[in-house]
């Protein structure tokens, strides 16, 4: 199978890769580029575990073909912290015990970040509505929603 050459901007760095057209962005991130922080939960767009930013919008990377990211801007969970400096959402998830098994956590952090970047004072209902595309089976969402609210406070103080 002929592989396509794709050049994209990944977590701020110019990145090139080869892929088959049938390979999803999720598959290429994980299997070709070694960025395994983006998780597969369902591979059909119903759980949000593979959420990444694509050209400034939150998407399920299982429903994006890697070839579509030519000249695109992609951000994954690996690009959220600045070195040792955690993003307020990451710190809030830790402080609020908003993860148990943690498999959905990267997706939740990416989706929450997409929300807070647009609506830094989203209320509980808005947070729940925005995060409805991200499934968590461990926490019952209570502490996740509280962590997002807490991150809003942290960002407001900053």
């Amino acid at each position: 199978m002929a592989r396509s050459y794709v050049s994209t901007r990944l977590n701020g760095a110019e990145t090139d890769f080869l892929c088959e057209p049938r390979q999803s962005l999720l598959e290429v991130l994980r299997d070709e580029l070694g960025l395994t922080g983006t998780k597969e939960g369902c591979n059909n767009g119903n759980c949000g575990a593979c959420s990444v930013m694509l050209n400034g919008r939150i998407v399920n990377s299982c429903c994006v073909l890697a070839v579509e990211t030519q000249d695109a801007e992609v951000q994954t969970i690996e690009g959220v912290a600045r070195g040792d400096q955690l993003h307020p959402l990451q710190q809030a998830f830790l402080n609020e015990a908003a993860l148990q098994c943690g498999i959905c956590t990267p997706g939740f952090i990416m989706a929450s970040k997409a929300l807070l970047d647009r609506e830094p004072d989203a209320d509980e209902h808005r947070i729940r509505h925005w995060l409805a595309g991200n499934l968590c089976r461990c926490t019952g969402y209570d502490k996740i929603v509280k962590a997002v609210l807490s991150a809003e406070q942290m960002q407001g103080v900053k």
Partner: protein
Amino acid sequence: MSTVEKTEYKVIGTRPVRPDGVEKVTGKAQYGADIRLPGMIYGRVLRSPHAHARIISIDTSAAEAHPGVLAVLTARDLPAAEDKMEDLGESAINVMEVSDNILASKKALYRGHAIAAVAAASGHVAEEALAKIKVEYEVLPPVLDVRDAMREDAPLLSETRLTKSMGGKLSEKPSNIAQFTQFKGGDIAAAFADADVVVEREFSTSMVHQGYIEPQVSTASWNADGTITIWTSTQGAFAVRSLVAEVLRQPISNIRVVPMEIGGGFGGKLPIYLDPVAALLSKKSGKPVKIAMSRTEVFEGTGPTSGTNIRLKMAAKGDKITAVEADLAYEAGAYPGSSVGAGAMCMLSPYSIENFQIDAYDVVVNKPKTAAYRAPGAPAAAFASESLIDELAKKQGIDPLAFRLANSSQAGTRMVTGVPFPRIGAVETTEAAINSPHYKSPIEGPNRGRGVASGFWFNAGMQSSVVAAVNSDGTINLIEGSTDIGGTRASLAMQLAETLGVNYESIRTAVVDTDSIGHNDVTGGSRTTFASGMAVFEAGMDIRRQLIARAAKLWSCSVDDVVYEDGGLRCKVDSTKGLTFKEMAGQQARTGGPLVGKASLVARGAGSAFATHIVDVEVDPETGKVEILRYTAVQDVGTAIHPSYVEGQIQGGVVQGIGWALNEEYFYDDAGKMMNSSYLDYRMPTALDVPMIDTILVEVPNPGHPYGVRGVGEVPIVPPLAAIANAIADATGHRFTTLPMSPRRVVEELNGLG
């Protein structure tokens, strides 16, 4: 938090950040699917499209010839397994059936049953090859419903399976009823005759899935020296090792299981599915092989929990429950081993009831072999019993929680097995619910209602091993072998810090592979913080004893004169002599060598868990939709080591229970095809479907644990099904006895449609 008889602790009860937290919020933590080995190839599994079929032939030649394919596997490649039971701690399973479930030999017993496997250069290529495997089936009629399967004329899953009754008695004719168990006490006939009121109903629940977000995944390397390494996502690395050894007929010591971070389990990652397949594909191909399931494979090919049918009759006299007659039939799936026994034993445990007869049937059907799911067996049983208890209370004109309190179990109450309870917190939990702000608040408005229910789970102990190695700077590496599925690295480190009087931050906890620590049973039965915590305490005490001996030698005094307290040592007879833990750690090379604390134990004295839940709902009678308005879960948690993670267990269990009550179900067509095997149509709650879940932690310390720990993870899923049914009954005047109480069922029953 309400507190009973509480000891003052320094670390226990605080809420530190978990040791593995940063890796998990930055995407660096390595889960099962994240491993990538040099030369690794990818496996895929071919699954039966039929719910019940004889396998006539399998032709793999075209798949083997497909470019890029390196190995193809069928049941013929599995060694003949022994017909014997393998003890997994909480349960025992038949090795031959485990093997047959991993790759079907003669019959496909459910849609999704694994038939063959392929390893290839990529997953896509392996899938192409699967399509080239030709399987000839003789399709047989499936049996999908538990009561249908019990009929004498039902299609048989196995022509040779006889019903096993108590005392090992076997039936004369083959049957789908694998086992019959009975619990009996008192005189039910007399008690029913003497009762003020008797209620009787039949309840049904569908199969539901644990729904962990991470699909099963396993990577194996069969090495040239005959050893096998398996990197997998499991609740028990040692159980995987034992089962793989049995299925592949290899010595246990040749197998090393590396537990990766696990993306949820809830009991569903106790069985093995992919591990032996990956290992054999690796042996055939000479390369490491990774196999990951798709979400549909997870639904169709792994174990959900049983669908059930329960016939229940209960009587009350005054404010006492006087008699219970129950008939529980649980679907085991394709092979025996449902959770009906646990359901029967848990059903009445919150209460002291003298007269009872509980019949329990374990029944095979053409659906996936069931697996444990959070308090396995108990939620469906409580759905039935707690619904009828609600009716009894109403008929007797007694507040439903006051009625439960009047019948509550306490120390000395005997379970249906005859075993008496030690100190338990059932009374305290019910009282805390009665006194909660939620229960004291009014519930107002049209179509709104409030429901309550209680629940019980045993909790388990079993085997744990830990090692704590003290470093020269006073930090400690805590080595353990229990899967950390939701914060147990933290809860174990906290118990060691408390025992040694050192900072939580000075302890680094690692979950290691099966070569690197003694045996640990599965993370299941809510046992890890309890049992591995007990081992951690013992390891800490081991270090303390060694330190005391070393100090006594340094100070030339008797060990009886050395005291360990507040993270240091002092001499009772010479107040000038004292050493901190850190100072002693720095001197270990000169005082006797490496300072290592160890403990390996069978943890006895698991403390049972009781919970009482309160829920307010609003029902839209025109659409049948049920909205959860407010939820409070009250639970005796023994001692909350890390209260945030205790609350999290409760909140997570409640929301799973809400999903089970309202929407989740395995929806089958008549041929036994699951029609909703995706997250789109298998409707687990989203963040928008639930409110905040309030928790009230009642702490009645478990006398069987040095810090009073009780398991907390499972009981929270027991009350929600009945609590919500009771709330809907309160809101609508209609009692639902079949789950899920989906909009379809609610609108049809309320409006007489259908």
